[in-house]
């Protein structure tokens, strides 16, 4: 009997040990980023990147193998997957994409994850990497911006034509919860609008009275509008991806009411593939790369000039 017990103990210990080691890579992939837009892609990619994370810092000095670890914000999943594919076919490079919430990526990079490039959804998280000494100050470039849009189902059941219509009675509006960044930005938009003469002072109150649900993430807002369950929703313009563009219509929110999120990209300073990393960043900023981002709903600057960060409100 004791022999069985002993072998049982061995099994238990082995199981516990393997659990312990596998959880090391998990933090980046658990607690889903509420801002995540391409969850399916990000889960798959993040688990792949979890392996690289278990490698201690700095990044493995494996020589220039032509492989890049790109840590990118979850909302970039669609666009960066396509960018990576194109870059790979044009170069002899292999890109490993790790999509997660920017705050998670920043923590991973801070903890020494083997990254070569960090593309963040905001400056705040890039600053975390700079403070940790993994990104050189001033090496970041804004490569895209995101903004809020109002969307409605293609058949427009509430017959919305302008932002004022959101305050009409019986419009079923879906917002993201306040804890979700996009939900917070949507409230900002309503507050700002209520102060303008084109909108009634009770605009925010009336619109909030129309809210039928505060969703847990921006993707849920999109889905409920695309399914035509709700009459309208507020999402990022990049959420209106080519796949859903046929299912929803959009009403743009003017700049003065909008919150523009700026996306910075920067090479990791101790990357062993600095040259290749620089090439990929160049590609993202090139007209070709910018076209891809525009296709996925990001706002890019016309022409090759680099956008200035000063006109952009930091989220």
């Amino acid at each position: 009997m004791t022999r069985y017990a002993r072998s049982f103990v061995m099994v238990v210990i082995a199981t516990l040990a393997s659990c312990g080691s596998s959880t090391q890579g998990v933090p980046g992939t658990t607690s889903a980023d509420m801002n995540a837009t391409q969850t399916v892609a990000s889960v798959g990619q993040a688990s792949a990147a979890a392996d690289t994370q278990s490698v201690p810092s700095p990044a493995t000095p494996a020589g220039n193998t032509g492989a890049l670890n790109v840590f990118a914000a979850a909302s970039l999943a669609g666009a960066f997957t396509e960018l990576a594919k194109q870059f790979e076919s044009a170069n002899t490079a292999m890109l490993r994409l790790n999509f997660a919430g920017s705050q998670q990526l920043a923590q991973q990079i801070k903890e020494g994850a083997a990254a070569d490039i960090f593309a963040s959804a905001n400056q705040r998280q890039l600053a975390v990497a700079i403070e940790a000494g993994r990104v050189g100050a001033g090496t970041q470039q804004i490569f895209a911006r995101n903004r809020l849009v109002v969307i409605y189902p293609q058949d427009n059941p509430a017959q919305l034509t302008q932002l004022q219509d959101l305050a009409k009675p019986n419009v079923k509006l879906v917002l993201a919860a306040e804890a979700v960044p996009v939900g917070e930005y949507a409230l900002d938009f309503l507050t700002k609008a209520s102060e303008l003469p084109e909108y009634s002072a009770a605009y925010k109150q009336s619109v909030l009275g129309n809210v039928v649900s505060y969703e847990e993430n921006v993707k849920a807002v999109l889905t409920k509008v695309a399914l035509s369950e709700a009459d309208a929703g507020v999402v990022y313009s990049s959420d209106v991806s080519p796949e859903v563009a046929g299912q929803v219509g959009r009403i743009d929110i003017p700049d003065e009411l909008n919150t523009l999120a700026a996306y910075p990209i920067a090479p990791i300073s101790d990357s062993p593939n600095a040259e290749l990393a620089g090439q990929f960043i160049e590609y993202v900023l090139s007209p070709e790369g910018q076209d891809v981002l525009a296709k996925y709903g990001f706002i890019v600057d016309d022409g090759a000039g680099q956008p200035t960060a000063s006109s952009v409100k930091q989220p």
Partner: protein
Amino acid sequence: MPSRRPVRTWWLSLALLSAPLLLFLCLPLVALVLRIDLLSVLMRLGEPPVVQAISLSLLTASLATLIALFAGTPVAYLLARWSFRGRGVLDTLIDLPMVLPPSVAGIALLITFGRRGLVGQYLAEWGVSLAFTSAAVVLAQTFVAAPFYVKAAMGAFARVERELEQAAAIDGASPLQVFRLVTVPLSRTMLLGGLVMTWARALGEFGATIIFAGNLPGRTQTMPLAIYLGFELDLGVALTLSVILLATSFAVLFVVKRILAQSVPSGSL
């Protein structure tokens, strides 16, 4: 004496082997309770979001349980008493909502009863819109929780001896009278157990609710939803509701087990 030692070692090793899982299951619950202080929980009990979530949860879970009782009893009796082709398939179908991820249930409900759904599009023509209403919460809860009652009731009815029912029938009782006066009283405790399990499951329903009914305080935001979203905004509210749910669930399960232990051999729940 020597013959006792292996036995004692055996039990000792069993206890040691049990410890990791028991600790793993209990520690998070203990942590939850340790993290809050009773005073703040009691104070938060009066806050509107907490009150709204609790009352909505109690109301919807009770309605879902009532629906399970009235709609589920005939199903359970039918399946327990009548064998017919396809009975096995039907039986499995009833199990399905219990094992499906609730999010699947939510999507299924949405594409059935939503505004463009299989049934919902006709309801919409009559001006009935279910999504984002408290009724949707009840439907979501009924969908995932009713099978618990149906399965318990099936088991209960199957245990009732047919001879007793037949004897009553010979004495001139109508089938309804047999059911009401013989079958139900004999299976009462297990029926009650099933109802309480259904109620508890409905109270904890999250995935199907948030997908089908959405999340609006006072209308569709039940306790589990308030906990999930409160976790990011106000940890205090989330903790308070978590502890309330924990205490309620523990009390419910404990009471059910006590009730069942009186009539049924132990280990069946």
